[in-house]
């Protein structure tokens, strides 16, 4: 197995773990955690491709990962703000209980 394939497999595994968590957990915060894991797996792919790609001096993959880290921070802040607001409204963060569109 080449180094790149190893990194890609780890990233794929992490992505799937995050996806499984996001699809199966009931707590809204844990769903967000799963999404964060998926984003991180994508970042790992970007950096691995940058490192083993033909033109590492072009910095493309690295820049993509850095921007993605910044965007993920914004996503986490807004997502958690929404979760807190939902908790205030429904007194629960259980996603199975969120089955009405009417407040």
């Amino acid at each position, binding site marked *: 197995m080449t180094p790149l394939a*190893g*990194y890609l497999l780890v990233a794929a595994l992490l992505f799937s*773990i995050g996806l499984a968590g996001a699809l199966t957990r009931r707590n809204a915060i*844990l769903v967000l955690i799963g999404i964060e894991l998926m984003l991180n797996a994508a970042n790992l792919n970007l950096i691995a491709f940058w490192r083993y790609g033909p033109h590492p001096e072009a*910095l493309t993959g690295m820049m993509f990962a850095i921007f993605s880290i*910044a965007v993920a921070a914004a996503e*986490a*802040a807004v997502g958690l703000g929404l979760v807190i*607001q939902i908790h205030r409204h429904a007194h629960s963060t259980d996603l199975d209980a969120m089955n009405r569109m009417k407040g």
Partner: protein
Amino acid sequence: MSLVFYAIAGLTVAGGLAAMLLKNTVHCALALTVAFAGIALLFLELDAQFAGFAQILVYIGAVAVLVVFAILLTRGSETPKGGVFSRNWLTGLAIAAGVFAVLGWAVLGSARALPGPGGTPTAAPTVTVLQIGNALMGRYVLPLEIVALLLTAALIGAVIVAMHEKEGAK
């Protein structure tokens, strides 16, 4: 494929698994930190020093702390009645397993086409922070500005979303 890589990869995956499987939400958040740290170490292993440190600073320093704050504000550290997994967890698990199977098949199937130790360069590319800074201010200045705008919007948005509603409405 060194021993170091296997150790860090194992740590990362274990952290991720624990974050998704544990019952106590705060334990999940702490396990998530382990996964974040593992990914930062993988970045360092890939000679991406700047990205690795940025990962620690942003994820462990900010996102993980935000998550635990949110957990405590929503009283999520109490284990809920009726299980931690959703009713249709089997479907979710099947979908995730399917995705992993497809990704793994794609990676292993194209492993021969990927650059390996024998093929294209494996020497560490030397990227200084100065180069990253120059690239951010030159070629990538437009994305940088957009990210700045996005972060400002997210800051204001998060404050407004999480703010108390008008006192009279309660």
